């Protein structure tokens, strides 16, 4: 939509192995993310979801395997060659990771100032636009991160992640720690970002509501292996004790019923 896309996968992970010291995190993980889809990683705490995300965004060096993003191998890529790639994706960290000494507007503007040649006035306007796009009130821009509520901080982090109009967006636990109202606001936001800006989104989440409402495809991770990949409906039919527990536990059932009612 934005740039002519080659008809191939946005992310292509093949036989990935990662380790933290001696602890094995991933064993032979393979998955692909297609253009324009909302792809989600789920699984219990400590199953390596966030680690996989960190490996893709080059914060962690895997032991073996291959990760291709936009067709380029990211493992072993040096900083200089990684920069053009990094500009094409945005990352929203679990706890926001907003720079606490800068205001929200400065946080978002910093990315633009660093990587584009736009005039200061235009940058300020684009920043205000991004802040508005994430559903924050206009006066939030002048505030410091510690003056914002948890939900607003997530939105501000999202505004920073989409500052450069990335083609690919990584979200780490976008709804963690939010009240149901703010969380469903994030659901809508994620969907509309994908629809309007044509983003490909890869997220890590525990939030079943978010999954039912937004995810096109989901990968279930457990103990470093992928148990299954598919749409939520497909996964809910999968016959694996852990997957069944995940989807048919009390919370899973409620979320599923909610999702059906909506449809």
């Amino acid at each position: 939509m934005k740039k002519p896309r080659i008809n191939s996968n946005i992310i292509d992970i093949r036989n990935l192995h990662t380790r933290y010291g001696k602890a094995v995190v991933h064993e032979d993980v393979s998955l692909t993310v297609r253009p324009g889809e909302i792809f989600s990683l789920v699984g219990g705490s400590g199953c390596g979801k966030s680690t996989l995300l960190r490996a893709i965004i080059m914060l962690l060096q895997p032991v073996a395997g291959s990760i291709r993003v936009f067709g380029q191998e990211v493992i072993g890529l040096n900083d200089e060659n990684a920069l053009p790639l990094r500009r094409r994706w945005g990352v929203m960290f679990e706890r926001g990771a907003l720079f606490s000494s800068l205001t929200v507007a400065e946080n978002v503007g910093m990315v633009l100032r660093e990587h584009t040649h736009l005039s200061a006035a235009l940058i300020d306007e684009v920043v205000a636009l991004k802040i508005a796009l994430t559903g924050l009130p206009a006066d939030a821009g002048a505030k410091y991160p510690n003056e914002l509520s948890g939900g607003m901080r997530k939105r501000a982090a999202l505004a920073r992640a989409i500052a450069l109009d990335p083609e690919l967006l990584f979200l780490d636990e976008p709804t963690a720690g939010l009240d149901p109202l703010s969380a469903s606001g994030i659901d809508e936001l994620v969907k509309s970002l994908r629809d309007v800006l044509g983003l490909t989104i890869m997220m890590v989440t525990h939030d079943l509501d978010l999954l039912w409402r937004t995810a096109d495809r989901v990968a279930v991770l457990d103990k470093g292996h992928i148990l299954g990949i598919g749409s939520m409906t497909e996964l809910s039919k999968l016959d694996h004790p852990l997957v069944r527990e995940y989807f048919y536990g009390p919370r899973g059932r409620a979320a599923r019923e909610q999702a059906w009612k909506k449809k």
Partner: protein
Amino acid sequence: MIAIQIARLEIVTDTAAAPASVTVRCAGAWTVQGVAPVEQRLTALSLPPASELVFDISAVSALDTAGAWLLHRTMRAVEQRGTTTRISGLKPEFDTLLQLIAARAEVVQPVEPVKAGLLASIGLQAWRSLIGVSGMLAFIGESAVTFLRSLIQPRRIRWRPILHNLQTAGFEALPITGLLSFLMGVVIAYQGADQLQRFGANIFIADLVGLSMLRELSPLLTAIIVAGRSGSAYAAQIGTMKINEEIDALRTIGIGPQELLVQPKIVALVIALPLLTVYADVAGVLGGMLMANSMLDISYRVFLDRLEDALSLSSFLTGIIKAPVFAVIIALVGCYQGFQASGSADSVGRQTTVSVVQSIFLVIVADALFSVIFNWLDL
């Protein structure tokens, strides 16, 4: 590597048509990376009045929010001057984006941060200083109350953190304190040797090194090293805990942060600093003794004999008695500044700096006061 595509535009004036119309032919990548070259030209766009302006975007290959905003902004600016605008060659996928931008355009007003005037900022600064002084006093009071309470109920004393602090602030400071103090002794002997030799008063090197180290230099030097090593660590630790809401968590669990974090530090430092000072005394005198031997040919035995005559118990005690006072200053300032941190990582850094500067300043002021008092008392 992907070459960054840029946006292009071309202005075509058609005077034959009535009313006169101007077409802006937009092409290329109207993206955040690409629009910079056309931004200037669009801002400075001047048009004949009462004409129609057409933006032909059929050749635009990519459009993102920055590009869409620039287009939207330009169109609005032109319309305000009474010229009608129109977009031609609109692709459906760009339409949603442009509509979204138009819907949000009202909210887009960059917020200017409020800047205080000179007078206001002076007032604010003065007010903050006042608050700071009263906060410090309150903190000292709170520490005193906690201390008294733990005297009444000795079970409340937390030995574990005290021992831990003794190790980190005391034992682990031994190498650096010893080395610096030794060097200080060497330097004093070196500087003094030359002068003393001129008067043939070589033997007084023991008086010079002994008195200056014991009375003044080693307590001061040790206090400054500890302020830099441990005072800063206290401020950083408590500041980070404050920001992570760990201090609040302690309060809700029913543990006073004073009791757990401040008091053990004060107690440990009050024990450790005098001990470190004695150690520094020894190291300093040793340095002086070595220097006296090599430069003035004073044997160790002679030096030590002279040292015994030169030093009285009071000269040792006047040095040592300062150490607990310095310790209280360093621990209190470090902890207080830690509690003052708020909000950002920046503020932890700032408070840590302030804690070191303030505690060294106060230590030297206290040292000067001691000199005056000892002078009165004729010590």
